[in-house]
């Protein structure tokens, strides 16, 4: 196999394009649920027995989603084959094949939601695998970036890596709970905001109320985790960590506002769908920051004596 330089700028650009397309696809997929169009095309993989049905009513959203998903699938296929042929690092090649496998499974899950009439476990898994695939593409994009090859590790004396990984995990769990809430029809189980049935703690007699309230509590946990991550990033005095952390914090605040808007507007389509996509964006930024933290920092014991660390102090072996 003839290898290109690992920086492979065009492959990196394709990975970035796939990443952006995936974020758009998550929004488009969210529109399908928000408009109640999930079963407007009752067959799969064809649509009303056609490759291209009339794009009317709910068909516009559902078949539009299938078209966007096919585009992302194609981009992923090209990226996976190109990576397999040109990437010398076995780990990155495996990552590309994992992304391809994930997008194929995601397509099959999409078909299963239609054929089996939106069973909750399949819908929730479809939603969560979308986020997982998004992270895989982020990893592919970062691992092919110039920064990946050219970086010199610094010591992590502010606990950035742990904070970033923890923040990412908290966001993912919140996304899982959000998907569960959405696909069990509990999005308006608590109809008011910021209180819940006029109280701080609502009566938890109904399963929908429980899931919804846990999602609200999860938002508080996410905010705490992101603030913790941002504090560590600011202490590092390194803009490579500070800027993404600031972005994650801003997106989290926007996400909370969108969640409130979704409730107060009785799940109006645009803010509700934007809430889905912004959740993915928060996860993406946190995951990217985690990768960056792990790649650009190392335990101080492994560094040479004069290597600087986060916070500007020289590390000592």
């Amino acid at each position, binding site marked *: 196999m003839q290898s290109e330089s690992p920086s492979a700028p065009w492959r990196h650009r394709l990975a970035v394009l796939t990443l952006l397309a995936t974020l758009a696809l998550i929004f488009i997929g969210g529109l399908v649920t928000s408009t109640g169009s999930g*079963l407007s095309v*009752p067959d799969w993989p064809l649509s009303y027995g056609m490759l291209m049905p009339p794009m*009317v009513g709910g068909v516009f959203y*559902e078949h539009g989603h299938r078209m966007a998903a096919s585009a992302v699938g194609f981009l992923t296929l090209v990226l996976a084959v190109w990576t397999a042929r040109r990437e010398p690092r076995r780990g990155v090649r495996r990552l590309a094949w994992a992304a391809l496998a994930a997008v194929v499974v995601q397509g099959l899950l999409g078909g299963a939601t239609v054929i089996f009439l939106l069973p909750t476990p399949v819908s929730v898994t479809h939603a969560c695998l979308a986020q*997982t695939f998004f992270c895989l593409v982020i990893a592919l994009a970062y*691992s092919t970036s110039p920064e990946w090859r050219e970086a010199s590790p610094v010591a992590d004396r502010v606990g950035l890596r742990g904070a970033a990984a923890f923040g990412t995990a908290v966001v993912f769990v919140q996304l899982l709970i959000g998907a569960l809430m959405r696909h*069990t*029809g509990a999005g308006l189980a608590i109809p008011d905001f910021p209180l819940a049935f006029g109280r701080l703690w609502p009566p938890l007699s109904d399963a929908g109320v429980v899931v919804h309230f846990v999602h609200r509590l999860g938002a508080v946990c996410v905010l705490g985790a992101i603030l913790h991550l941002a504090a560590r990033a600011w202490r590092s005095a390194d803009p490579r960590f500070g800027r993404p952390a600031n972005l994650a914090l801003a997106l989290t605040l926007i996400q909370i506002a969108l969640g409130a808007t979704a409730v107060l507007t009785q799940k109006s389509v645009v803010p509700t769908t934007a809430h889905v996509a912004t959740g993915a964006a928060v996860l993406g930024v946190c995951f990217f920051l985690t990768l960056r933290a792990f790649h650009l920092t190392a335990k101080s014991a492994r560094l040479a004596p004069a290597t600087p660390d986060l916070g500007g102090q020289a590390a000592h072996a």
Partner: protein
Amino acid sequence: MIMRKAIAVTGLCALPFVASCGGGEAPTTEAPAAAPTAEAAAPAATGTASITGKVSFEGTVPPGEKIKLNADPKCAEMHKGGLERQPIHVTDGGLGDVLVYVKSPVSGTFAAPADAVTLDQKGCDYTPHMVTVRAGQGLKIRNSDDTLHNIHPRPTANEEFNFGQAKQGMEKVRTFDKAEVMIPVGCDVHPWMRAYISVFSHPFYTVTKEDGTFEIKGLPAGEYEIEAFHGKLKNQAQKVTVKDGEAAKLDFSFKG
């Protein structure tokens, strides 16, 4: 090394989605209990009593909902003046399209008629809105529109289905095996379309005429619980006693 960690982190993050298998089902509502069917060997219990009456509406009919049809140009073309969804049809004080049926007790086994009942998708709406059919009887679903529809009932006791009818003139016959009242039916392509299918194991049901009047015939003498369903307004139930050869009077009044 870092790539292994990235894959491991991603894999760990992917594990929680497995928990969705315990996510539970979407909330469902229990259908009102229909009269239990008797064993196959028991003869059909019919008689000469009947129940007649009128379902009336008191109050002000709320304004109908203006439907935006621009999502489908074919529907917009069929309703150039717009389409208004008004589920409350009042004529001379009477409320039409109300399902009235004997809830209990009903004994005996009744064979399903051989003829099918038709549910038509016409003018980007359902005809009729209140469909009644017997368990095991054919329901012919037809697309009379030059646009595609999908027919998607959401039963709780029967098997749910959803299929598309892309072309004008397409027909398909389906059956429901179990008695179930007020199954909502919708079209996911055109979300304003709404009908109800009620499935019975006996023949003692009807839908009120435009003026709200109804008649249920062929009942054996006895005391019965009669239920009236509108779909938009809160359902009502009353008891009535009927005698052989006589028509008992029973009226319902829905309030707006």
